[in-house]
């Protein structure tokens, strides 16, 4: 009688142990993979992203330096391919650092309803940021950040190049 009374307890324990072991088997194999600590820098995350997308480990500082040389009251244009995640991330990073400047997004592969891509006029921006896109050969001056981000300030923009 006593064994019968314990049967539900034994069954309960057995089910819990089996499920727990399977859970731990899969969970532990995917559990936290700890990397190196730091670096303890103000641009900890954006530098990591910049290193991945343009190969420049101090990309945030270089980008910020270039942006700070541009007038704050004029927009910047960001040219990228929205179908490409790395280019989109780069465009967003430019937008992140460009504050308080408005940003004109120019996704070159975007399909517009009327088939025509709006092109911002030169007097609307102080610089163009080519994110993963090669700028036309005649555009000068240029600031290159890593391999993939080219900045082309408007020739008469206040501040100009850093």
């Amino acid at each position: 009688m006593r064994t019968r009374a314990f049967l539900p307890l034994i069954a309960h324990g057995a089910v819990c142990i089996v499920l727990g072991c399977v859970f731990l088997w899969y969970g532990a194999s995917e559990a936290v993979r700890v990397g190196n600590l730091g670096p303890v820098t103000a641009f900890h995350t954006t530098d990591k992203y910049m290193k991945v997308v343009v190969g420049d480990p101090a990309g945030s500082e270089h980008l910020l330096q270039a942006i700070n040389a541009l007038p704050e009251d004029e927009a910047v244009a960001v040219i990228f391919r929205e179908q490409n995640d790395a280019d989109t991330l780069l465009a967003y990073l430019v937008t992140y650092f460009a504050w308080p400047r408005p940003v004109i997004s120019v996704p070159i592969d975007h399909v517009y309803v009327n088939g025509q891509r709006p092109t911002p006029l030169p007097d609307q921006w102080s610089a163009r940021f080519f994110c993963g896109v090669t700028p036309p050969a005649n555009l000068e001056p240029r600031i290159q950040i890593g391999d993939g981000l080219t900045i082309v300030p408007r020739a008469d923009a206040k501040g100009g190049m850093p």
Partner: protein
Amino acid sequence: MTIVGLTAALLIIVIGGLGLTLALRPCKHFNLAELCALSWFFGTGLISLLLWIGGLFFSGVFLQSFVAILALGLGIVVFSQATKERISFVFPYPRSLIEWILLITITVQFGIIFWASFSSGLGWDGLLNWEIKARYAFLNHGVMPAQYFSDTSRDFTHQAYPPWIPLTEVWLYLWMGEAHQFWAKCLFAPFYCAGTILLIIIACRLTSRRWIGLLTGALIFFVPCLTTKPGGAQLGYVDVPIAMLYLAAIGYLLLAGEGNDPFSWRIYALSLSLLPWAKREGFVLWAIGAGCGLFVVWRAKRSLRDLLWLVPGPLTAVFWKIFYSSMGKTGAFEYLPMTIPTLMKNAFRLPIIGQRLIADMIDVERWSIFWPIALIALVSLLWRNRDRRFCILFVATVTPICVYAFLYVFSGWPNWNTHIQQSLSRLLLHVMPLLWLTVALALRPPELRQDGVGSPEPSDP
């Protein structure tokens, strides 16, 4: 200097939260770990709300002083009142070898989460939804700049999202004197730790078994989605904090329903009221949690006055909505108008959403076998005790999943499949810690008659 400022900022958060927690008038013997965990949640809520309200009138050093004085004042006044009332703080030490092993395991896990948090960067949303707002507010002397809300070129940062996390990050930045992506991450691991502590405490109280609480707290670490995947504790997303807050709300509601305990009810209400301040989805969780609260008031014959405690949640949401609208924006663009014609037009999505949901739940790389275990736990509880606890847990865990899945019918993304792919796991995360409470209840051995097996241990404070 950065470290000194950071320490001061964190201390003020905890002191403010401590004041708010003790102001809810706990019992004479208060669990110290519980106090710390609740202080973290309420402290971040308090500081972010004060920064937002104070930011309407002040900026820079004045704003910083305004928030610091109020938070410190609340903490000091309420703490001195609590010592006058002879409230004692106790730390329940483990009583057996198993409990010691589990406690040490959990402590090591907390260390790993902190390490993982500081060794990885902020995730996409962590940077471009949350930290970006903190950076802009810091550059504008602690106040979210008005032109940011009307800036269409920054729509991808979701300006409509409430600023619980960004304003808490701003608080750190103001004290450090710089926007610092590395130190901003010290906010997120504590949410995981505080939530796990509350899970342990609530599970202990509901099951009357300390080892079950500790075991549950140790197991939650092994859900990959919580610790390694996008949305996890180390990436600076709001999903883990919101999930832990929801766990606290429903967990304390269960405790309030069992013992008619006014303190648990107040903790439930305050946790619930922070949900709409965390994320837009928080309002869905608030509505479900409030529905469960109404059920408890009805079944436990509590005073209707208790419902007044539910008011701050929607009030915060409404004021945020008014503020956001006054900034020149009328709405967010992720969802189509929620109308019957849209529903009829997109009804074909429902089976696909269901398939995606199940596929996500059985993805062992994301969840291990958590969802099958949670299902078995729910069925086990249904079999063993179809009581008020089960009803609340069932509604509080299943309804958000159904609502979140249903909302994809109205997704305005050109490729709504991508919308599901990018957000479903993170939304499921919102109910995951609460489901661990279900697992804890199901873990409790079946009661045996007359022979003493299954009788409760003495309850912990």
